[in-house]
């Protein structure tokens, strides 16, 4: 039942007038880029001041659907930081488990999109097909494929009973095998390498100047990862590597994400094994929070999610500031897109993995030929891949 039919057109919403990225071109080379956001602006910080802490957890989950557990984890870290609250060990393993599973599903999602943008629709279908077992694991543990509602201040909401672990380990093994196959297919393909190597380079200095985070920064040689810099939950208790590469091009960003999936599978396995025997409750019930301020962060699939909370002793935040990783990563497109051919524009913009809940995927190109839309960019991108394939395979 493998699919070869390609949906026509951009499959991200393309409102005709909405302009998100405006690319200025000279001939077929991109000279400048202008970003317009606000189509998703829902006023989270405003609403959060009118909700209790527990209600805010559900609210911040809905900032983004793909990294829907990163925001709650960062938020509960911030509230726990006000009074230095400790969480029980079982809760720590469960939080890390959910967070890493989310990283796997998010990177697979990105892999599929990247494949679609360069014309490898089979990669898209396979990557998304093997997301499904991960979403099944989520449904078993939390009750929902997305928007889990698992986090609470002081712990987690639901437990993973020891008898549930063996079937989860089996599903994980399936995902690991398939990931291996997909990774080898991507790495061994000469067309993919030619297509993506040296494209859309973000230099190390630019990554530092823009304060980039996540795989976007790590592919450019900036070795930052909240999981190692400030290990919370169970990150200090499990073994894993931080993947850092040097070239900063789209190929490196792809490799960073693929290798991170492999590391995440290791972490998930370790957490599931420990959950078979770790003792204790899953929630340290926090009855009140004193007046003060707290900073919480978490390494989401796209980078560091930052939450700041100011409290006044009541059960509502006085001020809640949210900063998603795409907020600092998207402006780096201005640096990585300068001077690249138009056919590479789409994959370069997609390589920072803009969490498109803060963005629209409508791209307008402004040049002498008038205004063109994203669907033309996708076509240009696929045509380039075809050309390279003919050159390499003859």
């Amino acid at each position, binding site marked *: 039942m493998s699919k070869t039919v390609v949906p026509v057109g951009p499959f991200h919403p393309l409102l005709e007038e909405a302009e998100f990225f405006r690319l200025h071109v000279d001939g077929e080379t991109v000279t400048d880029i202008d970003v317009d956001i*606000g189509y998703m602006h829902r006023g989270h*910080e405003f609403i959060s001041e009118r909700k209790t802490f527990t209600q805010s957890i559900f609210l911040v989950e809905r900032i983004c659907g793909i990294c829907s557990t990163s925001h709650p984890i960062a938020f509960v870290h911030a509230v726990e930081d006000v009074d230095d609250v400790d969480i029980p060990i079982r809760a720590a393993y469960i939080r890390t488990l959910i967070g890493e599973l989310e990283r796997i599903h998010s990177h697979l999602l990105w892999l599929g999109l990247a494949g679609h943008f360069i014309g490898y629709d089979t990669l898209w279908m396979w990557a998304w097909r093997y997301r499904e077992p991960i979403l099944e694991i989520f449904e078993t543990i939390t009750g929902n494929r997305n928007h889990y509602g698992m986090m609470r201040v002081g712990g987690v909401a639901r437990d993973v009973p020891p008898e549930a672990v063996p079937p989860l380990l089996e599903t994980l093994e399936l995902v690991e095998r398939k990931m291996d196959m997909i990774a080898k297919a991507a790495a061994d393909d000469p067309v993919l390498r030619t297509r993506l190597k040296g494209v859309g380079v973000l230099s190390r200095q630019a990554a530092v100047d823009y304060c980039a985070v996540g795989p976007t920064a790590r592919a450019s040689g900036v070795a930052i990862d909240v999981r190692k*810099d*400030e290990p919370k939950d169970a990150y200090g208790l499990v073994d894993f590597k931080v993947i850092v590469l040097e070239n900063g091009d789209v190929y490196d960003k792809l490799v960073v994400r693929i290798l991170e999936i492999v590391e995440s599978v290791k972490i998930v396995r370790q957490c599931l094994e420990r959950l078979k025997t770790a003792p204790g409750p899953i929630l340290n019930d926090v009855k009140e929070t004193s007046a003060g301020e707290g900073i919480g962060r978490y390494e989401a699939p796209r980078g560091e999610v*930052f939450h700041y909370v100011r409290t006044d002793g009541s059960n509502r935040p006085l001020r809640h500031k949210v900063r998603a990783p795409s907020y600092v990563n998207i402006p780096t497109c201005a640096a990585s897109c300068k001077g690249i051919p138009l056919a590479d524009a789409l994959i370069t913009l997609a390589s920072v993995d803009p969490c498109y809940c803060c963005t629209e995927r409508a791209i307008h190109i402004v040049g002498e030929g008038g205004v063109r839309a994203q669907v033309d960019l996708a076509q240009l991108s696929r045509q380039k891949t075809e050309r390279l394939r003919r050159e390499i395979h003859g």
Partner: protein
Amino acid sequence: MAERNHFLDGLEGKIGRTAAKKGRLYFEVAVKDLHDVVRHLFLGQGCRLSTASAMEMRRGLEVLYHFSHDATGRYYCPRVVLTDLEDPKMPSIAPIIKGAEWIEREISELFGIVFEGHPWPERLLTRDHPHPPDRPLRLRRKP
């Protein structure tokens, strides 16, 4: 936190009221010393700007910068308080840190603070908006 003293060496006389917690240091800075402090943290010590948050309090509008020192996982947060609520103005740090451009545009939009020296002070979230909200996060509140 003995390390705190070495970290902020060179900024004597510029650091006001300080609050220290595990891994976090919040300190007040006068508006005129902001650029020196930011240069010390970003260029001198290699910190990364995570974000900046603004808040309206009874004593004025507070802008709190969050600098992350990734090598140690600690946060250094200079705080600036603007007492003029009718026409709040302060120098922009975007000429020093490119990553601060969007952050300051957003604070400007939501709180009405003018950042002098910002390369492109356009609205960020409500450009081309049919009826843009007027400084929606400005509300009188008890601190």
